[in-house]
């Protein structure tokens, strides 16, 4: 990258699958980074929500993941690339109420089948790709003024 612009930022964070104790650390981190960059509160909140939903999904359904946060003039981009079981039917997974969450996930207060819809609703642009046995790739873009 060339000269750093005042509101340009890029960082990658790893997520460990299966570990509910650490779930949310990445999104909490992203939130404080965006705040420090002076991004408006409602946009920081959207970015935190989408990354947290994605993080919970990685912890619930994947082995590990990397989260790429990129802030460019006009947008915050969050990419979550996991290695794991993948999603056999994305249309089904995107349906509100569809969930394969187990008892452990439900006990933590998750597994209503709302996460992916919520990610889509809070993103200005949302892409999902997945390959069974390989992993899932989410890309969320939230526009900044």
């Amino acid at each position, binding site marked *: 990258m060339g000269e750093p612009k005042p509101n340009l930022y890029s960082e990658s964070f790893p997520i460990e699958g299966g570990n509910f104790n650490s779930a949310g650390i990445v*999104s909490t981190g992203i939130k404080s980074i965006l705040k420090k960059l002076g991004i408006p509160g409602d946009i920081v*909140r959207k970015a*935190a929500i989408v990354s947290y939903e994605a993080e919970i999904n990685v912890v619930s359904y994947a082995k590990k993941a990397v989260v790429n946060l990129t802030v460019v003039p006009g947008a915050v981009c969050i990419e979550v690339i996991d290695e794991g079981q993948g999603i056999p039917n994305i249309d089904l997974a995107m349906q509100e109420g569809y969930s394969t969450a187990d008892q452990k996930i439900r006990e*933590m*207060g*998750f597994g209503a089948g709302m996460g992916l819809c919520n990610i889509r609703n809070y993103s200005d642009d949302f892409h999902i790709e997945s390959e069974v046995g390989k992993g899932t790739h989410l890309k969320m873009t939230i526009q900044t003024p």
Partner: protein
Amino acid sequence: MKLSEVKDILDAEIIVGEDCLDLEVHTAFGADLMSDVLAFAKAGSLLLTGLTNTQVIRTANVLDIAAIILVRGKKPSSETIALASELKIPILTTKYILFETAGRLYMKGIVGCLSKVENTSGRT
């Protein structure tokens, strides 16, 4: 109303955020399902819940929840208390059940952060 008044109405004990009692709140959301909290709760609201794990704090943090009210006399674990202190999210605990907690606050003017969900397909 101020958080101190919420505390009085609910005969609650403050576990984290003794210094936040002047905080102003007007709305609340109640659920034991964080999936629903994430989809519906608005910034600056109270979160009424019976769940006490650390994900409740993480959820409150990403949503900019003003304070967490634990219902049914639930007490958070030391990890939950530590995380809430770190992220500066007040936690109160009340012996009232969720229904009573919501009702008592509603009578005094706290409203839902939304009253109805929009039409949805296949919500379970």
